């Protein structure tokens, strides 16, 4: 779907270099790995304690994420393709929830014309809550990853498909297929609840890295100071 309005184009420009994906993915990956390490090595691992690691990581992401991205973009993106005001991160207000419901019901969403994003709430928080809720219930034991990963992939795809940062269908399919792969690898049910976090982290980092490589190849570093080739 073409993004026509300047506000939406500016919001999607924030994701043009893949850096937000890489940062969010790295956070999930590092703190998810800490959670997994806890599950493997603790004598009596509390089923939820590993998510405290993740909560710490997400707090760090929400607190310092913008500053880190601005630091990176000042060196990678702004000299190459210019600076535009970063999109405002919208929280899910009641109006936002109705927007989400419209998106899920596959009806056309109202045309957004502001420089805003919901990347944190519709991608990072969705991954966290999805894994947290399913881990709390953990009703499927060894079938957990098989069912959780496709469900997570479909949710991420549906929630973001009309956003400023949509996921491609084949990318969501790859995430979904990690479920059967985990079943095939026969991972212990005790470890399975943290694996969706790790896999989602790897998935985001991989996408971000591909986007970044493509971006860097298409936009070589300019010669003059202000980023404009004479």
């Amino acid at each position, binding site marked *: 779907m073409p993004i026509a309005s*300047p506000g939406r184009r500016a919001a999607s420009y924030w994701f043009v270099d893949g850096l937000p994906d890489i940062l969010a993915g790295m956070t999930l990956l590092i703190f998810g790995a800490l959670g997994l390490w806890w599950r493997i090595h603790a004598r009596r691992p509390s089923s939820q304690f590993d998510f405290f690691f993740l909560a710490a990581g997400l707090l760090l992401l929400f607190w310092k994420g913008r500053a880190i991205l601005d630091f990176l973009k*000042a060196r990678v993106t702004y000299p190459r393709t210019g600076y535009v005001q970063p999109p405002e991160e919208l929280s899910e207000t009641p109006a936002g929830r109705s927007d989400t419901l419209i998106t899920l019901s596959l009806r056309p969403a109202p045309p957004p*014309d502001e420089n805003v994003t919901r990347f944190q709430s519709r991608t990072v928080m969705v991954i966290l809550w999805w894994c947290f809720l399913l881990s709390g219930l953990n009703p499927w034991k060894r079938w957990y990853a098989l069912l959780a990963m496709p469900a997570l992939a479909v949710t991420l795809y549906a929630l973001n498909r009309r956003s400023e940062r949509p996921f491609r269908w084949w990318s969501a399919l790859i995430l979904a297929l990690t479920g059967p792969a985990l079943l095939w690898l026969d991972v212990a049910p005790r470890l399975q609840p943290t694996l969706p976090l790790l896999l989602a982290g790897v998935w985001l980092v991989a996408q971000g890295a591909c986007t970044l490589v493509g971006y860097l190849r298409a936009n070589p570093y300019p010669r003059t100071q*202000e980023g404009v080739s004479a």
Partner: protein
Amino acid sequence: MTPRMQQISQLDRVIHEPARLAIMLILGGAGDADFLYLQREGGFTQGNLSGHLAKLEEAGYVEIEKKFKGKVPLTVCSLTGKGRTAFAEYSNRMLGLLQSNGACGSPRP
């Protein structure tokens, strides 16, 4: 002169020029943007954009600041309060003109 023609002649000529209208649209939707982003987004040449920005700045519609992001110098442009008001007025006037002419419906073949 008919009232409609009078309305047309009252359009803000600073904004009415297509390149400047594009700049106002981009800055109105995106917020702050630097010279390079405007150049790429609007498909301007460097000299063309400089000229139009100078005119908008002279009219008090656009503010141009030299900023640093990290160690990178950026020429950041943004709409002023006067610019926002003028752009809103221009949009309303133009919309009114087009609607009164029945030109805001579906495009004719």
